[in-house]
Every structure is written in structure tokens, then in C-alpha cells.
């Protein structure tokens, strides 16, 4: 634990706790909100929580792989948002709704 070296008493656990709180909020958003746009935003929260934990690991282990992984993540998340919103637009055009629970044509 490099905490001794860094005078502030911030530990890895601080960041990890923050990370999983954000993760859970994101999960809750995905499960709860009916509006697809907000569901997509919640997904972004999940990705951000991962980024925090990666960056924290990276920092506390004095390694850069994590940091670089975060860069990849940010890029990929942006690409995902683009696709997600494109799908959302097609859904809206076809079904005239942004509410997830109105999309239940297929089941069983």
C-alpha cells in the first residue's frame, strides 16, 4: 500500500467505494427509468464508475496500463453512445415512443 508515501490519507478503497456506488446508481437507473435516453445516460454512469476504479488502480499501483485502458474506454463509450442514440432514433421513428416498456412486441 503506497498510502504511507502519499501524505494524504486517501486510499484506494476510497476510490473503489465511490466507483461501486456510481456503478450501482447506474444499474439502478438502467433498471428503473422508462425513458430510453435516461437508460443510456445511466449506462454512461456505469462506464464512468469503471474508469474511476481503473484510474485509481493505475495510480496506486504506479502502473500506466490502467490509465491507457481508461482512454480506450472513453473512446469506446463514445462510439457506443453514437450507436445507441442511432438505434434510439430508429426506434422512435418506428414506434413513436421513448419508453422502454412499450417495446414488447416479442416475448415468450
Amino acid at each position, binding site marked *: 500500500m503506497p498510502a504511507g508515501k502519499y501524505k494524504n490519507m486517501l486510499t484506494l478503497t476510497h476510490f473503489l467505494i465511490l466507483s461501486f456506488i456510481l456503478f450501482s446508481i447506474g444499474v439502478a437507473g438502467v433498471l428503473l427509468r422508462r425513458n*430510453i435516453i435516461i437508460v443510456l445516460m445511466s449506462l454512461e454512469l456505469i462506464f464512468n464508475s469503471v474508469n474511476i*476504479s481503473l484510474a485509481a*488502480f*493505475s495510480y496506486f499501483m504506479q502502473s500506466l*496500463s*490502467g490509465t491507457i485502458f481508461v482512454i480506450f474506454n472513453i473512446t469506446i463509450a463514445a462510439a457506443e453512445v453514437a450507436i445507441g442514440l442511432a438505434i434510439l432514433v430508429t*426506434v422512435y421513428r418506428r*414506434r413513436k415512443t421513448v419508453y422502454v416498456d412499450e417495446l414488447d412486441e416479442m*416475448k415468450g
Partner: protein
Amino acid sequence: MLETLNINLTAILPEILLTALALCVMALDLIMRRGASRLVLGYLSIIGLLIILPVSCVSVIDGAFYGGMVKADGFSAYFNAIFIIAAIFTILISMDYLKRVNINKGEYYYIVLFATLGMMVMAASNDLVNLYVGLELMALSFYVLVAIRTASSKSVEAALKYFVLGALSSGVLLYGISFTYGVAGTTNFTEIAFQARRVTILDPYLLLAIVFIIVGFSFKIALFPFHLWSPDTYEGAPTPIAALLSVGSKAAAFAAFMRVFLVALPVYQPHWSRIFWGLSAATMLYGSVVAISQKNIVRMLAYSSIAHAGIIMIGFLVTSDMGAAGVMYYLLVYAFMNIGAFTVVTLFIRSSGRGESIRDYRGLAVRHPWLAFVMSIFLVSLAGIPPTGGFTAKFFILSSAINAQYYWLAVIGVVSTAISLFFYAKVIFYMYLSEPDALTEGTAGGAAGGADRDLPIMSSATCNIVLVAAAVGTVLLGIYPTPFIDMAIKAVKPFFLT
């Protein structure tokens, strides 16, 4: 760091060629006239893939390349062959399918190629970063492909479901990856394995990491209870894409599983194999039981595919070279038999949406004996009856389970297979032992039905090629599996040396 880069273009030659091919197809698409038929893009893709297939089979080089990111071993070559075969079949069916549903989008072809590239990157990766990037490349391509029938409300609904759940699973997977990184201090599989051998005890971070990685990939494989997307997505997606999803995406996720758990984390086998045990047993039983009551053939195949994933899982979790080779061999067989079945299904699809019900297959043997015959081969193989590939594949998996003393899992596998016979046989009975439904002949469809009456079951040349190739492959793999299983065993041997 720079000195260990080990750049070697030969090692990634299949990936480079595939990218080049995709870009060529894309360029051609851009310069073609807007209304012109895009079929030529399909032919170009197939020719390109046919060239890449042998290249990817021979470009096997020892060692890790690009800073330990990429492997070009027999394992990735085997999987590349599966992916490319699946892609060739998919494109061949798609050419017919796209005509059928009246879509003339060139993007379709090269996004399929890019999805294949993503799978290849996954199978070849020796690093979590690379693995994740490959996974996302594949996933993004599939999101687009599932949604490509923008005019169909089912298609867009399927895409949305797939996207949201896929992104959620990506998030979970990433969380697991980040903790793996936190435990091992590296994302490289070889180094993680080294690290794991040093520690060996399972600390809480690693537990979290393992569980989250398992869940993340289980989604792609559609293991119970992370399978819920798959029936809806298969139903809504263009049928050839459903075929590719069920074969390619699943195989890629298995490749990833094997890389991560057999190369990086074999030390913790007792821990993770227990989790897989439960997932596998639940998936086998759930898939085969629920498939019985399906009325839509695509959904039935989706559940059957879930059940198969459960059985394939057995071969993976027993952690032996025979089991792992069984997984690879099974996936190869699965590529032939499942795409074959999906091809027949594709021929039934009409723009009106009729033809997806299992009832529509009634009396097929009389009207189209050839289609009924090949469909029976595929179904018999899926059911695991000799002399087809499905039987030998199941045999390998189950005997590896017995060898590794996973007796109960093997018994559950046999039970699930026995149950699954009922829904496969249902289709065969409908084809051979039922009178043609008046509805399928288009009489009840009235004027509107009359128009698409003749279209559906006219098999095109491209589809016939797939049917013949898939049927021959299925039977050949059933009668003469030895070389293929030997190759697979050779490919996974290095995983079990340490």
C-alpha cells in the same frame, strides 16, 4: 518496453487482410450508384474471405506480438476458421435474404466483415485491453446489423434490447476487468497467470473480478440467466445475422473465456469452475425445457442455442485438453449445423412476417423434399444423434466430463439432450408427418398473401451452396472427426503445459 514489442506483420496477417477487404468493400459501396444492386459487394466479400481462410489457417507463429497483446497460435487459427466459415455462410444467405426483405444496403456486408474482425481480435488476444476492444468491435457491429431492417419494428426493438443489455454486460465485464487489473497489476494474460501462481489465494478483489468477467461474457454466450436477450434479438434481427450471432459471437465469447480462464486464471479453477458448473447445468436444462413450448422457429433455435451453450460450457469448465478441444470442435460443428438450420429458416421468411411459425413447416417433405431432407440432417445433428457431427461433438464433451469426473454434469447433459430431442423431432414430424397447412399455401392470405406466395421457398443458388456445404460439413464431421479434433487438441495443448 519498446524492446519487447515484437512487431510481426505475419502474425496479424489475417486481421490485416480482413480489414483491407472490408475497406475495399466499403470503398466500392461508396463509389457505386445509389440504386445499384449491392450483390456484387457480397460476392467480393466471399471471394476475399475464401482467400483469407487458408491464410488464417497457416499463419501460426509461436510467441506473443505487439507488446504481448496478440497471439497467433493454433488456437486463434482454429477459431478464425470457425469465424470465417460462419461469415462466408452468413454473407451467402444474406444475399438472398436482403433481396427477400427488400434491403439494398452495402453497409451490411462490410459490417459483417468488421464483426468477424472483432471476433478474430478476441480469439487472438493475449491481453484484456485487446480482448475488450475486440469484443466491442464485434458488439457494435452486431448492434448495427440487428437494427439494419430499420423499417421493421421488430428489428429495431430487438436492436434496442440487445444494445442496452449488451452495454450493461460490457459495463459489468469492464468492472471485472478493472479488478483483475487491480489484483494482478497488469492486463496481460501471461503476466496475470504468473502473478496468480505467486499468490494463489483468492482475495476478494479477484473474486469480484472473476464473477463480473463471467457474467459479462455469459451474456454474449447467452447462459441462463443472462440469456433473455437472445430469443428476442434472434427473432427481430435479420435471420442471417441471428445465425452469425448464435455461432460467431458465441464462439468468440468462448474463445475469450478460454483465454482468460485457462491461460490467465487456471490457478483459481476450483473457484470459477463451481460457478460455471451452476451456470452450465441451469442453462442446459432451461434451454431445452423452454424450447419445447416455442411456436416460432427462430425462437426455438434461440433456446436450442442456449441449451447448446450450456453443454459446450461443460467442456470448458472441466479444464482438460480434451474438454477444451471438445469445445472448439463443438463450435466448429455448431457453425455448420446451426447456420444450416438458419438457412432453411431464412428461406421461409417473407416480408409479411409469415413463415416463422413451426407450423409453417408442415408437409415440407412433400413440397420441397430437398429442403426437408437437409433440415432433418441439421436438426438430427443438433439433437446429437449419430452419425452426424452433433453426436461426435456431444460425445467428446460428455466423455471429457466423465474423464474429469464431473459425473453429474454429464448426466444433466444427457438429460438435456434427451429433452431437446422432442422439439427438434417436432419440426421433423411437421415436415414429414403432417399435411401442408392451407395457410402456408397462401390461400387464406387473400390478395396480399398471393403476392408473396411464390417467393419464400424458392431456394436460390447461394442458399443452396450453403445448404450443401453445411450438410456435407455436418455429416463429414460426424463420420470423420479425427483430424479436426486432433487439430483442436494440438491447439489447446500449450494451455495445459504449465
